[in-house]
């Protein structure tokens, strides 16, 4: 289930058959509206707008095509972006301390890393733990576990996780455990690092300024020497 932050306007693609551009698409409860709809390769491509005050939680999708009604429970979810931490690994120094963010199920709710480019990376994930805890790493975008589900640890533990770089890397710590901190170390290959691209020098304004100054000086010199005679 894809999660959308409150206030977002995004394109989504609904795969299926028999859609037409007269299909009626809506989400319930209220809070998510369809502002644009089109057909691309038999799929419905819709732009949805999530209201700033849309209720957090899952939404049911209903599609009406030629009188036929199809529904999909828990098609999308809406989250509060204010409670999320999404960190691009390329722009954060390693090791990265991942903040604990208590939620209803996890003590590290909605804290995740992402890669700008879906390139593989080994993530060395460390849990500082002084007792029993349950941990896992989830990728909500691809609905898969990168570690786990539900691995029990009883003291400081480190995992080396192969990540293909797509989706999200969300370390989760189940509630009421003994984890006091999470950090992740990784090494971005040099050819994948983000360079700092500086503005290029544009000589044209200097040609203009230099030409005007030079022309003025030469012109004045000419006038002055004329007056001298």
């Amino acid at each position, binding site marked *: 289930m894809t999660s959308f*932050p409150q*206030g*977002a*306007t*995004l394109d*989504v*693609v609904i795969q299926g058959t028999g859609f037409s*551009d007269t299909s009626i698409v809506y989400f319930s409860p209220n809070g998510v509206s369809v502002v*644009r709809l*089109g*057909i*691309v*390769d*038999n*799929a419905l*491509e819709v732009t949805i707008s999530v209201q700033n005050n849309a209720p957090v939680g899952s939404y049911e999708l209903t599609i009406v095509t030629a009188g036929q009604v199809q529904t999909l429970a828990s098609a999308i979810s809406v989250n509060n*972006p*204010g*409670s*999320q*931490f*999404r*960190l*691009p690994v*390329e*722009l954060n120094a390693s090791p990265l301390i991942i903040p604990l963010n208590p939620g209803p199920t996890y003590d590290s709710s909605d804290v995740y890393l*992402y*890669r*700008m*480019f879906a390139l593989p990376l080994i993530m060395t994930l460390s849990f500082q733990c002084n007792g029993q805890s349950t941990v896992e790493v989830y990728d909500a975008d691809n609905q898969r576990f990168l570690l786990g589900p539900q691995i029990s640890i009883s003291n400081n533990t480190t995992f080396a996780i192969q990540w293909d770089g*797509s989706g*999200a890397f969300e370390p989760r710590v189940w509630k009421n455990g003994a984890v006091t901190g999470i950090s992740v170390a990784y090494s971005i290959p040099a050819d*994948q690092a*983000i*360079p*700092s*691209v*500086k*503005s*290029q*020098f*544009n*000589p*044209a*304004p200097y*040609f*203009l*300024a*230099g*030409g*005007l100054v*030079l*022309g*003025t*000086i*030469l*012109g004045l010199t*000419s006038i002055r*020497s004329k007056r001298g*005679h």
Partner: protein
Amino acid sequence: VDIKAAVNYLEGLWTPEQGAFREAYGLNHYWQNDNYIASIVMSKYDPAKVQIQRSGILSGYTDIRWCLLTGDTIHFKQTPLILPDWMRYADLVGLQFLYLCSAGLQGQDGPPGAPTFYTRETLMGILGKMYGLEYPGYITDIASPFEAYTMYKLCIYALCALKFNYESLAEELINTVTQFQIQSGPQAGGIKTEYVPPDLQSKYPGLLGLANCETTSLCIIAQEALNSYKLKNGLMTGFGLAAAGAGAISLAVKWRSQR
């Protein structure tokens, strides 16, 4: 991009009964964001239609994205505020770069949900890494539902490149876009929205050959930006050389007359 042909394509999308440009040839969709960006183009070529738009479909409407192309940073909704993992999207990175330039900012902190500091230089670095990452000449977008490469992202990158004086890069990008301008038929002058790699063309046949209002408008804007950049630089260089030359001639004439 042949601007005249592209403008003619847009004219062909005009529907007098709606007082608006349709989304694409053969589609009866009229979107405010399409019409907004078309109005930016048409304010120069067909202001009468823009007046009709403003009193109809665009009445009271300011597009939160394309307003940036008019220099409006007030109504522009910064993408980090909307989508915390915005740095995965080439167009969003490009628009944020253009926002920083228009607002006179060198960089800024991300919002609480995406607390990463970024600068103009970083954003250009991200775009540079995305460009040609998978297919030479095209800019990637890992979040795209289709493995296709959009022309409008190349145009946004071209606009960014010009802000940093990468004229030859902007030219290269727009030359790529030009290859997607339709030469004949009912869509003549329009810019196909996407490049679909050959190995995926059978998977997404519907993507091939489509042009639309938004992409074509943005391509015109990018081509015009490149043209005016070159003209401005040419004029500055020319005036500078002319001023220096005039001064030198004046001095030389005087020196000769003295001898």
